[in-house]
């Protein structure tokens, strides 16, 4: 299953908190794609996801815009 979370324009902690909630309800192997444009989030979200043991990829799709792709593990 692939879920997309659009967090463009959201303030710092919101992408991470939303991602944490979303991943809780997902199964192993599911993929969560979080769209962000906050520089804090492009670091704290992947950092958290990696520490939680998930596979993480960061895709820069535009200037100041990223897709953080998290595969639940």
């Amino acid at each position, binding site marked *: 299953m692939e879920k997309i979370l659009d967090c463009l324009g959201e303030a710092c902690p919101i992408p991470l908190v939303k991602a944490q909630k979303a991943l809780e309800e997902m199964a192993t192997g599911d993929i969560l794609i979080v769209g962000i444009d906050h520089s804090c989030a*492009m670091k704290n979200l992947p950092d958290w996801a990696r520490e939680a043991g998930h596979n993480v990829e960061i895709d820069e799709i535009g200037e*100041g815009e990223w897709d953080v792709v998290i595969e639940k593990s």
Partner: protein
Amino acid sequence: MEKSKKGIDLDSLLKKEWSYTTGAVLIALLATVLVLVVGKSWGVTGVFPFWGGVILEKIGVNADSWSIFNGKLSKFVFFKKFANITNVGIIIGAFIASLLAASFKIKMIKSFRQVVAAVIGGTLMGIGATLAMGCNIGGLFSGISALSLHGWVYLVFIFLGAIVGSSILKKWFM
């Protein structure tokens, strides 16, 4: 990795984010240089009332006659107070950092909730910083760095405030 024809790794030089530890050490060094050069420690909000007063004067309000300014606004020279310069410098520095990394983007306000958060949060910070005689920089950072007790009190209570702020954020602003 994007490499220019000269073989310089532009991404590493200008784009890849630095570690938090690197940031911490560099900020401490910059602050120390500042205190050695200017004789006063880094602070952000000390000049804010004057910014407000100057703008009020420009729109026709006679703020200079207020008790809190008492004529000081007419003597306001931007480049004479170092904090004016460092504050604008932070804005410019962050601007340059994002541009050189090609990750600058204007993020428009998305919802009315964000406006309310900024209004309430900003006002609380302004009042809080004045009562505590410093913000997170002038009060917390420069206080603790000076081995001042008020810095430690600041540290304890700013965390307590953050706990309350976090629940408010979760409940009303998510």
